[in-house]
């Protein structure tokens, strides 16, 4: 028996273009046995492209991949799986109506006609015990929580004897405790000589879990650094290309009166399931209320209810002590309620329309843009130019379709549009998701500035660090229910917040301070 080579993955000179734009440009990647390699870069830097090349989904224009010293043929997911590459996508690739064990064997070559169910299940049990991945093999996927589904995805890769596990932003859907468990699993896997590629935007967890950090920018490899010998600031600088100050200047403000209040709200999701369960919240002038929770626990529906975009089955919404329940959404917009949705391209913008046309989406019916039945396009142009200038939107012109802008610039444009009327209430969901370090900082500063101007802000984020650094108060949501109101988030303790995110009420999580 020969010793396995210590170099597990070697990608050399990978280039991949889409429509003439190089998503990867001569990128090299090396992963050793037992190594956790963090892959960093803003959205569009080419991380996903590189990983899709590795897992055989994309056919690159040039380059080579060696797994364990053996050349891998390109563009075949089957060959990649056979060579030991396993990828856990952000959006899971599971069949919701089937059981865990059925999903495990799905797509395996050379399956017998009659599945040896008992053996498969006992194999799965063995692996889950070995790695601390607690899942019932006979459970049906749709009944599992997001965290459990992720464990199934990891199990699936291990069941297929993956030597290399690619995790694409795995903690975005996890509570802090679940993330900790995931890190244990990752460590156990690397101890056995497997390699893990870890994609993330969160610098804190990258510092915690990775051995090396590899940074991509605009499709090119910026550099690889040893995590221990580096710092958050240094890595951020690599990502952006210049020095960035990560500290925020948050002033002490005495909050004012209640502006928006939601009382006993119940609402259904698009699929008709109960999404909100007796939610009551109050937003005050000059105060940021943060909302923590694992993705998909009713946050989107809550935002929509507060912005008047989703009907409640019961409950009341008040704006400045006047009831506005069931009022048309435009009435709320006219009263100064602004909403920055998480789904920028899908909900917040009209991708095929240009910057100018998008800039007027929330004001085309009001003076000075509206002239009776007509739109004064000169006024729109002036407004759009103003946003582009004040919010540093990097666009070739205001006639450029929004789909051609980067994620960060789309977000700046949206922020500019929503903030241009000095909102009284601002609801922002994952406002910095996928943005680079500089754009993230810019967005956070804008939120703090609105707070100083007296806006009542509701901030929903999957990034606990972001919530802790911006919020004055914090609520935690779990399965559409508020688990408790945290009056001083920074002294409350992240472990207790994590317990609440997993469904523990604040009284049982050690009580309010």
């Amino acid at each position, binding site marked *: 028996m020969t010793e396995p080579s210590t170099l597990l993955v070697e990608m050399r000179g990978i280039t991949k273009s889409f*429509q*003439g734009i190089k998503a990867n440009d001569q990128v090299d990647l090396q992963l050793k046995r037992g190594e956790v390699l963090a892959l960093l870069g803003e959205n569009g830097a080419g991380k996903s492209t590189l990983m899709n090349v590795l897992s055989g989904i994309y*056919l*690159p*224009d*040039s380059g080579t991949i060696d797994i364990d010293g053996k050349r891998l043929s*390109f563009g075949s997911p089957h060959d990649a799986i056979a060579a030991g590459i396993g990828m856990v996508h952000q959006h899971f690739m599971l069949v919701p109506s089937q059981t865990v064990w059925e999903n495990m064997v799905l797509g395996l070559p050379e399956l017998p006609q009659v599945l040896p169910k008992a053996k498969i299940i006992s194999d799965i049990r063995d692996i889950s015990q070995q790695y601390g991945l607690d899942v019932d093999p006979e459970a049906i996927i749709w009944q599992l929580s997001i965290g459990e589904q992720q464990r199934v995805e990891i199990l699936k890769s291990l069941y297929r004897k993956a030597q290399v596990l690619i995790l694409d932003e795995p903690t975005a859907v996890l509570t802090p405790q679940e993330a900790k468990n995931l890190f244990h699993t990752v460590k156990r896997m690397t101890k056995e000589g497997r390699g893990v590629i870890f994609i993330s935007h969160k610098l804190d967890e990258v510092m915690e879990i990775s051995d090396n950090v590899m940074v991509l920018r605009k499709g090119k490899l910026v550099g690889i650094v040893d995590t221990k010998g580096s710092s958050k600031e240094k890595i951020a600088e690599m990502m952006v290309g210049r020095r960035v100050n990560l500290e925020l200047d948050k002033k002490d403000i005495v909050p004012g009166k209640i502006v928006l209040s939601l009382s006993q709200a119940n609402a259904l999701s698009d699929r008709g399931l109960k999404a909100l369960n007796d939610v009551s919240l109050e937003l005050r002038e000059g105060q940021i209320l943060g909302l923590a929770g694992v993705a998909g626990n009713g946050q989107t529906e809550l935002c929509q209810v507060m912005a008047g*975009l989703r009907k409640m089955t019961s409950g009341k919404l008040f704006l400045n002590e006047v009831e506005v329940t069931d009022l*048309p*959404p*435009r009435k*709320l*917009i006219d009263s100064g309620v602004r*909403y920055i*949705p998480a*789904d920028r391209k*899908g*909900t*917040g*913008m*009209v*991708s*095929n*329309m240009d910057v100018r*046309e998008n800039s*007027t*989406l*929330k004001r*085309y*019916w009001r003076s000075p843009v*509206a002239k009776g*039945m*007509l*739109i004064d*396009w000169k006024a729109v142009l002036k407004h759009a130019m103003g946003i582009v200038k004040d919010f540093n939107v990097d666009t070739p012109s205001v006639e450029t379709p929004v789909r051609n802008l980067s994620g960060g610039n789309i977000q700046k444009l949206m922020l500019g549009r929503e903030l241009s009327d000095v909102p009284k209430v601002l609801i922002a969901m994952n406002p910095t998701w996928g943005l680079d370090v500089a754009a993230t900082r810019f967005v956070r500063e804008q939120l703090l500035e609105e707070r100083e101007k007296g806006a009542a802000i509701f901030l929903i984020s999957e990034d606990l660090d972001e919530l802790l650094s911006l919020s004055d108060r914090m609520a935690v949501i779990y399965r559409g229910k508020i688990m408790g109101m945290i009056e001083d988030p920074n002294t409350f303790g992240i472990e207790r917040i994590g317990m609440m995110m997993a469904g523990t009420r604040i009284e049982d999580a050690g009580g309010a301070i």
Partner: protein
Amino acid sequence: MRLKTQKRLNQPIWLEIAIPVGGLVMAFLVSGVFLTAMGVSPMEAYREMYYSAFGDSYGLSECMVKAIPLAMAAIAVTLSFKMLIWNIGAEGQIFMGAIAAAAAARYFPSDNHVLMLFSMGSLAILAGGLWAAFAGYLKARWNVNEIITTLMMNYIAIHLMDYFVYGPWRDPASLGFPMTAPFPQSARLMEMGWGRVHSGIILAAILIFMAWWVFKMTRWGYEIRVIGENPKAATFAGIDYVKNVVVVMFISGAIAGLAGMTEVAGLQGRLQHGFSGGFGYTAIIVAWLSRLNPIAIALVAFLMGGLLVGGESLQIVMGLPIASTLVVQGCILFFILAGEFFRRYRIVIAKEDV
């Protein structure tokens, strides 16, 4: 060697000309084979088609006569297509407009030209509009597929008209032909002194300009475009989707209804079986070929009129059966529409062993 399709980043100007021209050449080649098999010289047939449509003033006037209802109906469907509501029912709405116009002439006759045309037009607008708005309401309220409803309602409208012209409204003097008595002179659109071209041409021109202006300048046009491009963003901006779907479908149907009224009051002077000849369907092709651009619709409707006129003369002069002229027309449409693919994609040869 492997062929791959690749999305084009932009459309160069030469392509915009090369593709329709290339499509026409391909169509003439393929239908040439067909015509030869029929024992007809293709060159002669094409020359006949061209000269009958564009060769003299009368030919051009006939193209215009066909272009009037085509352009109006194309504007009608464009309005709904812009917001991704697929009104396939312009044909039925044309019929409803024509029935309503005939009813006005029959039951509320007036010697006053203006009053008569006004009542015919209003009833046609109402009939076509409500016919389409019904499908729009089903779509907006319960998400009933409007393609199915508008298409099915076409058959209802066509048979409804047949009921009238075969039954209670049949002209006793028509010797059994399914048609109503001729409208009184006050119910006829003016002639323009150019072949059979009638004042419906003015109406069509106004509608084309109005559509262009509405989309470009008005708040409502902006709302329609936002709904069409991204309904979620429209809701997010507080645009009332349900209301707009019903309103747009009403106006779309109203314009188609007006086209039906124009056709019977301008050209035929009576209601008769099969008066439309499928204008409502051809208008969908006109709208697509124009890429929903109202100004382009004017040109495309005229050219499409030429294709119809040329096809008719093939039957008369060359003695070809109607089915074979439909084959020639079908070929031309097929290749021009197929050209769309090459406008958006290009074929590249994939490099081996990367």
